[in-house]
């Protein structure tokens, strides 16, 4: 998700991050891998976008972070969805499905 309309894509990236974190705390690398895996390698999150987005979302209060130990015993920064973030996720999911429904309608009509 590199080029294109940054507004839409940024919102989309936020949604993907929040959704991923809804499963439980995860570090940046884990988030990137999860999105890639689940989307069958269709969506590749670029490192250059991921970290600024994580820090921005954290400042917005949707996620919080803490240092923990990864499964291979390394120090890693884990992000966790906050209560505010959970509400935001619901809102964004709703927005997203509205958007896709709308796009689908347009495509069908044409």
């Amino acid at each position, binding site marked *: 998700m590199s080029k294109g309309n940054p507004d839409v894509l940024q919102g989309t990236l936020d949604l993907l991050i929040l959704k991923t974190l809804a499963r439980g705390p995860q*570090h*940046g*690398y884990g988030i*990137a891998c999860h999105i890639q895996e689940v989307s069958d390698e269709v969506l590749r999150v*670029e*490192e*250059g976008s991921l*970290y*600024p987005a*994580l*820090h*921005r979302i*954290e*400042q*917005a*209060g949707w996620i919080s972070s803490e240092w923990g130990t*990864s499964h*291979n015993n*390394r*120090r*890693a*920064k884990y992000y966790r969805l906050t209560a505010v973030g959970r509400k935001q996720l619901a809102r964004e999911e709703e927005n997203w499905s509205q958007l896709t429904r709308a796009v689908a309608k347009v495509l069908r009509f044409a």
Partner: protein
Amino acid sequence: MSWINRLLGSFRKDRLEDQLDDELQFHIEMRTQEFVASGMLPEEARHKASRLFGNQTLLKERTREMDTIGWIETLWQDLRYALRLLRKSPGFTAVAVLSLALGIGANTAVFSMLDTLLLTKLPVRDPDGLYQLVVTHRSATHNSFAYTDYQKLRDGFDTFDGVIAWTTSSFEIQINNVPEEVRGAFVTGAFYEVLGVKPALGRLFVPSDDTVAGASVAVLGYSYWERTFARDPNVIGKVVHIEGLPFTVIGVTPREFAGAEVDYPRDVTVPVQAIKRLQPKSNMLESTGSYWLRVMVRLKPGITMKSARPVLRDLWPKLLEDDGARPIDGWTQKLNIEPGGMGVSGVRNEFSEALIILMTLVALVLLIACANIANLLLARATVRRREVAVRIALGAGRTRLVRQWLTESLVLASLGGFAGVMLAHWITQGLLLFLPKGGAGFLAFHLDIRMLLFAAALTTATALIFGLLPSLQVANLPPGSAMNESVRGSSGRRRTLLARGVVIAQVAVCLVLVTGALLFARSLQNLARSDYGFQREGLLLVNANPAKGGFKGDRASFFYKDFLSSLDATPAIRSASCAFITPLAGGMWWDPAVVPGYTPARNEMTTVYLNSVSPRYFATMGTPVLVGREFTDADDRTTRRVAIVNESFARRFFHGDAVGRNFTVGDGKDDDQDTVNLEIVGVVANTKYGQPREKQKELVYIAMYQGKRGASGTIQVRLAPDINPDAASGEIRKIAGRIGKEVPIEVQTYDKLFKRVLQQDRMVALLSGFFGLLGITLAFVGLYGVMAYAVNARTGEIGIRMALGAQSRTVIWMILKDSLTLASWGAIIGVPVALVASRFIASYLFGVTPSDPNALVLAVLTILIVAMLAGYLPGRRASSLDPMIALRSE
């Protein structure tokens, strides 16, 4: 709160940076493992993992931006950078901070005085709804009323929602048998209620306290309570003795309220009716002719000051008519109303104009000081051109550079402002030395939020004034230019032009300052030397209080007669006399004259000013009797009433031929009045009456021993030649002691009184002289700096000239001419400004016009001499350069 996090983040950048590094490092390692697992060589895997991040620095910066607030981070950087730079040049920093501290300190100090004097409201309920009543007559205003007047105002007007009156008086108060002189006041019963002042302790007066029966209660001022009773709450109910009589303390006023007279914070108040107890024989409460109370009112809802005025004007004379004939000095003039929310202050009336002038002076000095700092910064900007050019070449934004330079100015100004606020207290103390002692204590420096805001605003303004030019110059530097030394000439000339402009402006402001100082000095000199119609040297003034020594009523006249004749018989004294009003001391007594045969034009006022004087008054004062005679001891109540008039009076009403003519002063309703049907027996030379600046008044003197009032007032003593005033005053005391042992006596020279009369003028002259000198010094430093820089920049050129045979005189003249040119431009701009500015102080000048050519020429000459000095020193250095060394310098 995300912005708080980001704000904090802005100050914890290093830690954030480390954490981000760790976070990204982990990501890279995980990817590397992933790639190795898929069969890559470790080295290659690590490389590929890193590359995924693209430009890592950019990524880090973008990520960090999310955690911080950008401008705070740069501000923080700029601040530290500025402080480092200032530390690196301690000389420059010290000079700049010190001059700013003095400038901002002086401005803050004077502003705090102005604030107290002109902007501070009384700490009472709705101060804007308070009005002071005054009686106006022509342009003169007074604010004293009789108690009967107060009663009429209270009962006779529907306009007022509340009327209060008070007077101040010093009390001798005894607590545990220790007598102490304190500041007291008599107030009417509703005083505190109408003002809306709530007690700090106990209760304050109510109208029922203000009755002859109830007037044995007292209210203490907060600071007095603190000082004498250590804030003991048990003071309520305690009995204190005021002038020997017991009063019960019922309450304490709040800390912030110390009376409606702001320069007389009082310690104790008692009800007005208490005056009956303290002075049983006085008729202060019944007399319609003793004016001793100040009156303030609140207006009924819906009534404004403007709508109240006609009511007061029309109703007042009708109410006064009930009194029948007014006494001789009846103030039967227009009753008027003025805003009273700031309370009453003699110091305000007298000194606010002087303080406004002072404020202007210190502002000008600060402006001149700013110009110097601007020039120093411009010079530094040139020195740092290389640094700036490097930064521009490396891609620094211009706004960012301007911001950084302005931050530097702001840091400098803030240091100066901070030190200035510290200094303001001491500067105020210094200025207070010029004001009357005791009365001006309330003007002491007070540090509050308003003062801090003023100082902060001033600091920012100065930073912009001296910082904007240098920083804009930095921003306009063409990239790469400064890297190349050969183009130095062009930008050097630019900076020189700017610096020259600044110096020209500085000289112009300085010229205004110096012109003002010269005009004030000239005025003071004129005031001190002017002839007011009498001789001030060798004149003593004696104030006696015969009533306190047991000479009451008519017996006071006996005391004066005895005293005067004993004084006359003393060899050291040439003559002595007594007068109700001492010239220039400020006392006034006026009424319209009715002259048979003189019909005034419509709307013409025939107001004349009166004095009641004893025999030999004119001989004592040294005022020539032009026609006729002085009063003699024979002019007493048994003979017909006589008067002496001054030249102006004789000329206006009798075309000069006045002796033997009759006239009346006042309404003349009562044949018995002292000023009715007077026969003129003499004409004396004109003298000034109330103050030095007044227009010549028509004066009438009546014979003191003919008046019903009897003898009272101040005694004048003319010393024989070569008599020491101190020795004479000892002798005068001795004589007074022989006649009435208990009579308190005060002796002072007329010169001492005259000094007090000129106090404000002296203050303005001295301070403007001081600030003028300061301005000149600063302008000299500014000019010198620019000239010295010019010599430096032209070293090569001077070397060539000298190598080609130029005389050192020529070189000196070259620099001198340059400096004089700058000063001349400054003068050309400054003279018209000074001419306009001096018009604002016209009312303040005496015997000199605002456009006085002498002052202007002298000011311009001063500036030119300063310019010559500022040019000569660098010029001489230039002329002593070795041509060879000078040539090599390029």
